């Protein structure tokens, strides 16, 4: 697999200013091209952990211990696609701007690169002719734009904070397929935060289960699913309500 890890988080601790511990003693590492799932419920600290990798902690929360070492740049995809886009700026323009600043291309080249990215993300060709505002796009399309914005930074690691939770299930499926295809093509590593164990296990080969700021179980996804060591993990597995097999499906 990978040789040296491109992301190493050791003994990470985050607290509020009044010393309430939000995340305690979190360890994990990520190799080149690997995918790690951070699974937990609300209050587990998974989102904060993700944000701390980028240094994007909300005000009032600070890192009180541990270290985060990363050789490569990271970019983040957020949960609310419309919240992540400037509503007053058209999407191609937004994307071109990121390309311009991050890839240091000329304005014209940035626009070309932006359109290429949008095509890679599966967005309709009509955007090439007529740029649109985020409010004119669907939720799924907006999320694709957000992913494009993240990829425009050419990150070594894509950080995803529940990117499909706010989307319909069919759109969710498309976005997951898109992300997996892109990972195959571009080779970035990924940290995927979600409360849905099924999604995390499908996308990621390694999982960390978090509860109240701590990692309660970690390891290979399938191993955890088939043989969970921690009762909390077992509870999360049980909460994915099973569906009968659909006749006629592959």
């Amino acid at each position, binding site marked *: *697999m*990978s040789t040296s890890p491109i992301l190493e988080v050791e003994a990470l601790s985050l607290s509020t200013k009044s010393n309430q511990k939000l995340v305690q003693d979190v360890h994990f590492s990520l190799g*080149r*091209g*690997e*995918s790690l799932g951070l699974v937990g*419920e*609300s209050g587990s600290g998974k989102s904060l952990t993700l944000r701390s990798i980028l240094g994007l902690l909300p005000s009032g929360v600070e890192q009180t211990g541990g270290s985060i070492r990363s050789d490569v740049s990271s970019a983040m995809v957020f949960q609310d696609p419309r919240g992540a886009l400037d509503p007053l700026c058209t999407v191609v323009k937004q994307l071109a701007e990121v390309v311009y600043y991050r890839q240091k291309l000329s304005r014209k080249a940035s626009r070309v690169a932006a359109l290429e990215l949008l095509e890679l993300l599966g967005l309709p060709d009509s955007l090439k002719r007529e740029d649109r505002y985020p409010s004119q796009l669907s*939720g799924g399309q907006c999320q694709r734009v957000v992913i494009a914005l993240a990829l425009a930074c050419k990150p070594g690691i894509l950080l995803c904070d529940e990117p499909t939770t706010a989307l*319909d*299930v*069919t*759109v*969710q*499926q498309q976005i*997951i397929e898109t992300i*997996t295809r892109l*990972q*195959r093509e571009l*080779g970035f590593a990924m940290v995927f935060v979600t*409360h*849905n*164990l*099924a*999604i995390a*296990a*499908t*996308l*990621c*080969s390694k999982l960390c289960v978090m509860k109240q700021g701590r990692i309660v179980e970690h390891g290979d*996804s*399938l191993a955890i*699913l088939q043989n969970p060591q921690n009762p909390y993990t077992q*509870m*999360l*597995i*049980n*909460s*994915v*309500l*099973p*569906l*009968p*097999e*659909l*006749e*006629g*499906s592959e």
Partner: protein
Amino acid sequence: MEPALQIQNVSVRYGDFTALDHIELKLQHHTTLGLVGESGSGKSTLARVIAGLITPDEGQMLLGNQTLKKKRSREQYKNIQMIFQNPDASLNPKHSIRQILAEALLFHRIVDRSQVEKRSRELLARVQLESKALDKYPHEFSGGQRQRIAIARAISVEPSLLIADEPTSALDVSVQLSVLELFNSLKRELNLTLLFISHDLGVIHAISDTVAVMRQGQLVEVSPKEQFFTRPESSYSRKLLSAVPKMPKSISSGGLYEPTL
């Protein structure tokens, strides 16, 4: 025996936009109808029309053999109660739990004033909350607890039809299961007819007897549960079912979606 609820040709329009398009639906007594749909399907609008919050532009509804008119009677309101999705906003932040339950009990004359306290305690016990909760205010409870309080209020007036609009969607998974079990047990104990709305097919499978699918204001399919999940009639239902993320059982060929080095 006539159905518990009949929806006949109900339409709701907002200007050009059709939220509900000639909906025809029947709910049988003491069954759970699971209503599924994606965003914009109109399922919440339908719930609100049934609950009397929105007046349809066309069509009518029958509760048992009574027509539900635009201005409902107190009795008709009593018989149809609703639980909403967002636990943070479902209880009046300035009312104590005691006030919330007492108001429902007294307005519909379920018990007289002297019995209110006792009945309130019983209701809380039924949703597995302590009596101490009566003195507290909504902000002192977690999301799951607030949903329970909302359920307690809804069942306090002894409705025959309970509508639940995505009641577990905003809750943590650890709490979801217990709230679902609560719905199931209450339905049995109180002989309720339940209309349960969710976008989560796993939840729908766990709780429904019949499944109805909505898409863009139209009813696409109504089928018994087992049939829906194994042999759905419409291709849209099939599309929804195949989109549900499943737990991987084994390593598929080629490894998980990571590029090999």
